[in-house]
């Protein structure tokens, strides 16, 4: 106990995905003594590193939201069950602003148009709408909009990104592209998933110079250079700037398949900033149980080798994610919440979990399963009232949202994190 937190924590956050990280950030920024617990390093390597707010609404019409805030206003009106509607527009705006500021403080600048979604091209050559992108991707957003002449480079052995595929697939929307295969100027360790090794290697100025030398002969009339997202795990802007200085044109990153360097970057930067701010991050430990006393949660029981450890807190936020994150688990008969067995809103039978076609624009009902919450984001018990006065939930664990199809994953994580932290502060006053 003593080695984790000296005193009783104000807030324990369970989960280390974007929702858990954002919750810990908001809590720590508000001066709360915060402990974040997670069994794994979190799912951030699976995250693209893009910050979606709302891209599609209404979902079944596949309607693109040009202005995410106008989209959210409409969504709150059309879908009063959606977690965004629990929060209201102003809280979401505030959460977003504060989170972007936090990232900036953590050394990661994100860029976006004011009051408008951005469009960028993914590694598949498809268009992606999102609210904010890492600043190392921004020249690609502008380049696409202005149809600039760009050289797209890829690397031998990096099977997850093909410049030719990118150029061919997006060609009708962005014709002035050329593809060039290069050899990465540094020996690589593994066979697949080389992007993380490449990002680490580009931390070295010598490797960067060699990469610049490899790119320059093919530059010709190109006004910018695109490459898979490998510009360092830390200080990506400095690495990009160094390359740009040597080749003479802007460089931009293209989001790739997992493991994603921009996702890892987000995790690293946020965690470093949280540690600087005094939050306690517990990794590799499973939360086994939450102890309660009537309608109050009092502590979390943690796995500690063969024994257990009990952490007390005044409030708890569940940000344990869905099936991949482990917050939900599905058997053949039903979906359960894994830590506290809280009631899970779900389709009546497994037959209704998924639609007949994978790409059905209505999305799969199982993806809207999850915890139902009150306006303070407290999970509901079967009687429709909050299960505990001081238990909150944030992120994709919540019901009535399909973040993948609505393109609202980061917004959902950040806004509900903000909502949960402020609900805790308000209710514990």
């Amino acid at each position, binding site marked *: 106990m003593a080695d984790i937190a000296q005193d009783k924590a104000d807030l324990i956050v369970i989960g280390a995905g974007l929702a858990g990280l954002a919750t810990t950030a908001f809590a720590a920024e508000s001066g709360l003594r915060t402990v974040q617990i997670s069994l794994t390093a979190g799912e951030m390597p699976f995250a693209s590193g893009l910050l979606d707010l709302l891209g599609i609404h209404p979902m079944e019409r596949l309607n693109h939201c040009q202005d995410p805030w106008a989209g959210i206003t409409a969504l709150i009106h059309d879908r009063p069950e959606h977690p965004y509607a629990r929060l209201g527009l102003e809280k979401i705006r505030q959460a977003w602003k504060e989170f972007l500021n936090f990232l900036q403080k953590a050394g990661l600048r994100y860029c976006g148009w004011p009051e408008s979604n951005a469009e960028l091209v993914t590694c*598949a*050559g498809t268009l992606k709408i999102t609210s904010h992108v890492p600043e190392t991707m921004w020249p690609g957003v502008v380049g696409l909009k202005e149809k600039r002449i760009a050289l797209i480079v890829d690397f031998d052995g990096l*099977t*997850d990104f093909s410049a030719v*595929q990118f150029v*061919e697939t997006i060609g009708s929307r962005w014709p002035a592209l050329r593809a060039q295969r290069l050899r990465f100027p540094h020996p690589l360790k593994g066979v697949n998933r080389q992007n993380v090794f490449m990002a680490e290697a580009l931390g070295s100025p010598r490797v960067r110079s060699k990469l610049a030398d490899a790119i320059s002969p093919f530059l010709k009339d190109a006004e910018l250079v695109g490459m898979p997202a490998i510009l360092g795990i830390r200080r990506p802007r400095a690495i990009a700037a160094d390359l740009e200085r040597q080749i003479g044109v802007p460089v931009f990153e293209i989001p790739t398949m997992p493991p994603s360097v921009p996702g890892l970057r987000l995790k690293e930067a946020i965690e470093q900033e949280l540690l600087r701010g005094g939050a306690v991050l517990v990794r590799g430990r499973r939360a086994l149980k939450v102890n309660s006393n009537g309608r109050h949660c009092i502590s979390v029981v943690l796995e500690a080798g063969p024994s257990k450890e009990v952490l007390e807190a005044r409030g708890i936020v569940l940000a344990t994610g869905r099936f991949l994150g482990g917050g939900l688990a599905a058997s053949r008969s039903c979906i359960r919440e894994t830590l506290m067995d809280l009631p899970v809103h779900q389709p009546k039978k497994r037959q209704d979990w998924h639609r007949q076609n994978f790409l059905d624009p209505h999305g799969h009902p199982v993806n809207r399963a999850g915890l139902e919450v009150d306006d303070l984001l407290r999970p509901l018990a079967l009687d429709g009232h909050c299960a505990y006065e001081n238990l909150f939930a944030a992120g994709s664990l919540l019901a009535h949202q399909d973040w993948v199809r609505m393109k609202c994953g980061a917004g959902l994580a950040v806004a509900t994190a903000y909502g949960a932290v402020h609900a805790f502060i308000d209710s514990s006053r």
Partner: protein
Amino acid sequence: METEVLIIGAGVTGAGLARDLALRGVHCIVVEAKDINAGASGANNGLLHSGARYVSNDPISARECRDESRLLKALAPNCIEDTGGLFVAVAGDDEAYIAEFPRLCAQHGIPVQELQRQEALELEPALADTLIAAYQVEDAAINPFRLSLENLAEAEAHGARLLTHSEIIGFERSGSRIRAVHLRQNQSGREIVIEVQQVVNATGPWAGEVASLAGLLVPIICSKGTLLVTQTRVTESVINRLRLPSDGDIVSPGGTVSLVGTTSVGLDAPSPCRPTLSEVDLLVDEAASMLPVLAGMRYVRAFAGVRPLLAAEKVTEGRTLSRGFVVLNHEEEGLSNFVTVTGGKITTFRLMAEKTADLVCSRLGVTAPCRTRTVPLASAEINQWTEPGLAPRIWLKQQNPKEPLLCECEMVPQSAVDQIIDQLKSKGGPLNLSAIGLRSRVGRGSCQGAFCGFRMSAHLYERGELEFDQGLSQLKQFLERRWHGLRPILWGPQLAQEELQEALHCGLFGLEV
């Protein structure tokens, strides 16, 4: 174009027939509406029956299986894993049937050995504690894809031709003979005419439809069978339930995985069919009573095939129909050069081919005898990539760090995919993710194509095989097809895998938009 024998259907029967005829020096062309093993040959439990399964209700099939499985083990060892098999009964199973079983096996000359409970549990530790009887038989596992590919490859080496994605649109008749066959090539839409001396309809459940184009009636009863693929192999040998054949009573090894089957559901037509959730639940529950580990197993896929059963007398229930085959000469219906071969099962494919070739050759006046009883099946290196678990072994042995893997689950290297692409191109067949997947293990691992589908598409662009956004429509098609097999098994860790896959393909790539 012209040929002595036109074979319709590139399942295992058509492939075996092509080899049989080619070895007798007869020229043939195999035409296939889709791709190799697109029907029942590609959707079965890969089981080389010793015959024991049929001793009580289908003695002819039992003896055919006994003889054929022995022949194939000797002549096509590359396609077979000689696992042996067990018939097991658990508490509650029909004791009269159990007692009768060894006598029936002996009556049909099928070797069987009774095992003590403890012996059986030592052989197969995953068997249930409720085990009450176990018999060892000579069942084995057979790889249907490799089998068809090798048969076709050997036939082609002897001058046969294969035209995939070519659909029969009509027969041109002249008196009592089919003079020519009209085909449409699905990719180009081009029509071609092949002048023929003999036609063989080897289209399995589609035999009735194809025969009707020639004005013939072949009454086929379609029976859908659903199977499950486990993530890891559960048993060393084939496990059969010791009871009258029923649902969910066979668990057979498929290299690195196990296949759990099957169901039997009557269908009106051999239309493409999907496995359903209720069939999956039935299979899991039934098979778990033999092997309890299957209740909590991760399944990576379900699939369904259509058995072509022969409508004899007034039988309506699929299980009681014969698994035997027929060779119909259609002479009474006024056609002298058209043969239909249907029914049967993978174990007897060679015999089906032999009987059919005998009839065709007698009509052609060819006297060369059948050689598939004695000549070992040739093995082409390229077909080894269909072998589960082989690619990881090769990769580990070679330790070539420069060689990227396009499929990480099954560890299929880029060079293997390149070999397959080159072969597909040289034959002018369409080049897509499904065609490559059929000839290798790509997309068959636990990611079910979520990652390798994209990587393969990228590789096809790299090679210049795709342009513009062709890769996207291919990828969408590939994902929709695999969805049929995934949807009914999405719970537990496979649902989590699916969540990741949707986050990638919809969340990031926006393929649904």
